[in-house]
């Protein structure tokens, strides 16, 4: 399955929902937010959002800024 994560297309196997995606990516899940097809997904819904071919996912967090 090919989805676009943070602007880059990636081939993803054996991942069905956002919760898994985060886990596989090795992200702690703290202090990040996910946009799925331009909708912000609350953390407690991550395991309800199924990934599909062509989906766009943005995973963002805070960094230092002025």
């Amino acid at each position, binding site marked *: 399955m090919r989805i676009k994560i943070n602007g880059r297309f990636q081939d993803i196997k054996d991942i069905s929902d956002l919760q898994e995606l985060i886990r596989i990516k090795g992200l702690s899940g703290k*202090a990040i*937010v996910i946009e799925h097809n331009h909708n912000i997904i609350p953390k407690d819904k991550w395991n309800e959002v199924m990934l599909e071919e062509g989906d766009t996912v943005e995973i963002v967090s805070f*960094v230092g*800024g*002025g």
Partner: protein
Amino acid sequence: MSDILRIADRSFDSRLFVGTGKFPDKRVIGDVIKACGCQMVTVALRRVDEKSDDENILDYIPSDCIIMINTSGARNADEAIRIARLARAMGCGRWIKIEVIPDNKYLLPDNVETLKATETLVSEGFILLAYMNPDLIIARALAKAGAAAVMPLGAPIGSGRGFKTKEIVKIMVNELDVPVIVDAGLGSPADAAACMELGCDAVLVNTAIAISKDPVMEAKAFDFAVNAGRTHYILSGSALPAPRAACASSPLTGFLRDGNKV
């Protein structure tokens, strides 16, 4: 002397806001903030970098600080709005520094898109501080649209050139009802003091502190300078002459306006 800055529903003892970008070692940020008594810090929002460690900038910020998310990276109103909404989803509250920058070289803001984003986000309940090119008329529009403060630049971001926009900023200070906070370009404590002596309500400093040989000492120096300038303004500011008003070169009568007298 009680001298509290109020923005939206919050009160600030400290008139030095600090940006968290560019610190070579992020762990110093907490000490910087404590050293200067800062109560308002800015952070940015970016795509996670999977390769970097799972560092969270928020961990370095004392819990009693207001965290204001800037919309850096936004090139137009829509992108700024999207960033603001994501920031809120992350549980960071409602404080947003709108920053819409289509220009990559001088990082100068787009006042029109800034105004558009402000209108939308205010209606969604955000507290907006608007980074802007110094401009009285746009600043009034921003205030009317609900911006909690305006943040005219002193010089291009990170240039350290100092407070180079005094002429228009002084007029803004005199004419606006919202706080005026000089943001960007200040290179030294004397610059910050000059902003405060002119009557600005606060300054936001990032680069000059972050790249200092000793960010903690430098932050203290800026805090001292901000207090010094503010005190001088309170003691003498009202005695200063207002900026010289303009004097039309075209006649001020006979305008072709409906419903007007000749």
